[in-house]
Each structure stands twice: as C-alpha cells, then as structure tokens.
C-alpha cells in the first residue's frame, strides 16, 4: 500500500518525462532509420542511410570532433574564468555577495540572441574592436575575430559562464570554512590549501558545471550560427540544416542521435575520470 502511494506520487513526473523526453527520443530514433525520399521529409520503409551518409561524407563527419572540441574548449575556459569568480563570491562579505551574484546572473536576463549579436558587433570585420584598431593605425586589415573557432568559443564561454559559476558557487559555499582553518593550523599555506583542499573538495561543483556547460555548448545553435556565420560547422547546425532547410528528416535525426551518443560518451568518460570515491 505504502509502495503504491509512492508510485502514485511520482506518476505525474513520470508521465511528463515519458511524454516530453522518452517519446521524442523514440520518435527521433525511429525517424533516423526511415528511408529518405525526394520532395517529402521521409519515405516508406527503413534504411541505415542516414548513419552511413554521416560517416562517409567528410563534410559531415568532421563536424563531430569539431563540435566536441568546441564544447571542451568552452568548458575549459568557463572553468578557468568561472572558478576565480565563484571563489571570490563565496568568500566575499554578505553585502558584496548579493551584488556579485547579480552581476554573474545578469547575462541570463538578456536573451541569448541579443548576447550573441552583441559579440558580432564587437568582433565583426567592421566591428568595434577592428574599427578602433584601424582608426588608431595599429592594423590595416581587420583581425579575424569572428567567423572562426576563436570567436565562437569566446562567445560561448561568455554565454554559458553562469552555468559554470552557479554549481561551483554552491559547492564552495557548502564547504565548512573550518576545513581551510584546520589545514592552516596544520601548517598549510594559501596555495597548498587551494590545491590540496579547496579545489578537490569543490570537485562535485566542478563536475556538475563542466557537464552542464559542455552539453549546452555542443547543442547550442544561436551563438555558433551568429558568431560563426555558418563557417564554423557544428553538428547541431548541420542537424537543423538537414531538418529544416534540406527537409531530410531521417538524416537529420541520425545526426542528432550520433551527436547525443557521442556527447553521452564524453560525459561518461569525464565523470569516470573525475569520480570521487569519498562523496
């Protein structure tokens, strides 16, 4: 009876999960094995053509490592920038903490399109940076700041930084301040405390933040398409292209699944490498 009631309580969540997560995945899975057809999104019968096409044509195949590398680079820079920020907020006085929190979260209030567009204004060939440098006579030809990996990683890092900072912050703030004091009383200096205590203890936050940013970065569409200007081909862009522009639903679905599985493997390997026996 008790057990039944417990099931009853999770029933709505389970239903939602089924309806909006499992069902779409199953649909995509089925669709990815459909036969392609001309003039229609998909035809009769089944085929593995979508999968073979992806790996056969380098134009598509190369986008996978490119996307994963882009995601990893973004994750790395988010961690690099986010950790000091989180550390600073966690140790700030109460008065400052609220303000810093606000500053970190404020980008989320502005839509992702606006933020990405902002970067094109800054990085474009006749954008703020290039035209200033040209006016100052430092350069004659614009620096390639946009339409390349550099620009996309920069913009993605900015866009997803809050998703790194928040889990880090929660990890750091839940840490007993006495732990660092204990380390000091045992003779540890500042840097040693960070390396041997603070960072390892905040590992759950590092892990969560990295996974979150990585997954968001590889599946993002707006930023790579605006800042990359279709010259940085991520698998996600190709998926949308296949689904919407080329009207090839089976191929698009196959690519989407290949990306999802690859990302899943990366995340699993990462989680495995950063596993914490103590937690």
């Amino acid at each position, binding site marked *: 009876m008790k057990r039944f009631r417990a099931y009853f309580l999770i029933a709505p969540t389970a239903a939602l999960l089924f309806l909006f997560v499992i069902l779409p995945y199953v649909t995509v899975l089925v669709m990815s094995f459909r036969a392609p057809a001309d003039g229609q999104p998909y035809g009769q019968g089944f085929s593995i053509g979508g999968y073979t096409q992806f790996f056969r044509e380098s134009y598509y195949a190369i986008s996978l490592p490119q996307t994963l590398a882009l995601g990893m680079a973004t994750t790395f820079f988010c961690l690099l920038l986010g950790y000091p920020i989180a550390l600073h907020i966690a140790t700030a006085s109460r008065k400052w903490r609220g303000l810093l929190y606000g500053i970190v979260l404020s980008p989320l209030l502005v839509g992702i399109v606006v933020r990405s567009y902002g970067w094109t204004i800054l990085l474009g060939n006749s954008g703020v940076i290039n035209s200033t440098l040209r006016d100052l006579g430092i350069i004659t030809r614009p620096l390639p700041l946009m339409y390349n990996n550099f620009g996309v990683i920069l913009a993605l890092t900015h866009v997803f930084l809050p998703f790194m900072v928040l889990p880090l912050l929660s990890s750091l703030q839940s840490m*007993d301040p*006495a*732990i660092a*004091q*204990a*380390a*000091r*009383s*045992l*003779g*540890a*200096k500042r840097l*040693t405390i960070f390396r*041997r*205590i603070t960072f*390892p*203890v905040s*590992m759950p936050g590092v892990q969560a933040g990295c996974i979150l940013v990585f997954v968001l970065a590889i599946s993002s569409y707006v930023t790579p398409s605006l800042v990359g200007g279709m010259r940085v081909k991520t698998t996600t862009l190709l998926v949308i292209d296949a689904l919407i522009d080329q009207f090839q639903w089976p191929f698009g679905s196959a690519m989407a699944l290949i990306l999802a599985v690859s990302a899943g493997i990366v995340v699993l390997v990462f989680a495995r490498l950063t596993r*914490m*026996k*103590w*937690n």
Partner: protein
Amino acid sequence: MTEVSLRALKKYYGKTAALKGISLDVNHGEFISLLGPSGCGKSTTLKCIAGFEEITQGGIFFDNQDISHKLPENRDIGMVFQSYALFPHMTVAQNLAFGLEMRRVSKSEIKERVMRAMDMVQLTPYADRYPKALSGGQQQRVALARALVIEPAILLLDEPLANLDAKLRDEMRGFIRDLQKRVGITTIYVTHDQDEAMTMSDRVVVMFDGEIAQAAAPEDVYNAPASERIARFVGNANILDLAISARPEGGGIETRLPGGTTLHVTASADWAGERLRIMARPEQIMLTAPEHGQLGGRIAKRYFSGGHVEYSIDTDCDEIAVVGPTTQNLKEGDTVGLCFDPARLWPMPDDRDGAAP
C-alpha cells in the same frame, strides 16, 4: 614555565568588543577550560590564540615570545573544531598525514607516526575509511589525532563534544583527559558545559561578556566563586541574604537567620555593611528533624533522580534547593530542619543589577 600568555587581549569586531582585555597565563602541560555562556568570547579567544583572528590590542606570547602577528600556519598549534573539519576527500590515514606532509617529514616517518596516532585513538581498523563513513565519535577522534600527530606545542579545542550524544560525551571526556595527561600537552578547551569544564580541567576560566570573571581550580570556582553570577553559572546555588549580627574577635562573621538562630560564617574577609549574601550549594545542606535545624522549612517539591533526591524547600529565607541522599525518607509537605556547614558557606559581593560590585 609559562607556555601561553595572553596580555590585556582586546578584540573588536567593528565597534563591538568581543574581548575587553583578557589576561591569562597557562602553564606548561596545563589543561585550561574557557567556560562561559554563549557569546561571551570563548571562541574568539581561541581564534586569536590560533591566529585566525587578528587581535585589536594586547599581546599573545608563546614561551615568552610575542606571536601576536604570526600566521596561524607558523604557530605550532593543533586545533580541534566543533564541526571536526575533517578533509572529506581524504581517508583517515590521509587526514592524519596531512600536517606531517606540510612539515616535510619523510614518508617512512609519516607512515609510522600516523600508525601510532591511529593506535592512540583506537582507529587503526578505519585507516582507509572516508570521514563520511565514520560515526560522530569516530570523526571526533580523527580530529583529535590529526591535531596531535604533528606534536604541536599547544592544543586548542572549541566545543569538541557539542555534537555528540550524552553517553558518548561522557566517554570522550575521559578519553581526552587521559590522552592529554599522557601526552602532557598544554591544552585550552572551550566549552559552555560546566560539568565538562569541572571534570576535565586543571583550571577553569569563567568568562562573561568578553572578560575573565574568575580563573581558578574547579573546586575553587565551585566552592568559592568570585561573584553570584559565577556561583549560579557553575552549578545550583542558594543565595541567602542575611543581616550581620556580630564580628567576633576570633574571625569570621556572625549572621542571624530568620527564626533567630545565629550562623557563623568562617571563610570570610572583612565585609563592610549591614548585610551579607552567602552561597550555600544544595548538596552542602543537610535535612534533619525540625528541632535540630538552623532554619525550619517545609518540603514543597521532591524529585527523585536516581543517585540522589532533589528538594525544593519553603523557608523564611526564600525557597532553598537541597540535594539529599536517597536513604532519607521524606515526602512533600514534611516539615524539616536545614543544617548548614559553616565551613562551606561562601560570602560574596552583591553583584545584582544596580548593586555596587
């Protein structure tokens, strides 16, 4: 030999004074308790000694060396925190090894000393466990061993038993005390539990409002408190407010109890004035037949508490608490006589609000 010396130590947080001038000398190998109500500055004192708080004024000396501005990591202290503050990502053995690694002790010696420390606190079977997989008492012992394994000059403990249940607390009290005696380390122990302070310490330092009210052996703090506030804080105290009737040649003071009996208080200085406030501890008062007592009364309440019986007795001198043996057959409503032991009565200055100190 003086190990730790606090000289007119002051600590302000902004404008509020947490410590208003603490002076204290702790001898080598001594076990000192800082005892006081919440917010009196016990932890602050300890943090200043450890170096986690910058002192505002005064000085801290270890072995006559001024270390007031030394960093905590250079002070050679071992500290045990109320929350234990174990490193969650390290096993018991790794926790113990950390301080030795910081001191660049050789690997083989670390291993040996960690083994010895684990043995000392009976944790050898748990060497490879993470703190999360230990009980509160076990974590407590890890914290203790981690502080001691570096063989510091001074051991500081901030309410280390506050998170344990009553039975374990009693056990750990004896454990810490024995260990401290065995190692012979100078120890400063913060607590707000007077029983803990009494049973463990060589000397109890009672603190109120950022000041030391009394620093003395447990017996003296209990039997000869410097003020009424201390008397009440370190146990149950009956305070009798009596008129002084005579100051005999032989010393002491004679007071008159309601009912006419004279009470001779032996332990006393020269108290000026007409009245005397005297402390009598509940277990130092004997209940007898009404005609034998110095003061008559009626038992208002009686509580049996296992080892002894607690009475609340209505007398002409307010309500008086008495603790007696269980062999006495007395009921609520009985009239009794109260017998005071003149040698154990303790006169005190009147420090109630509004009264002169």
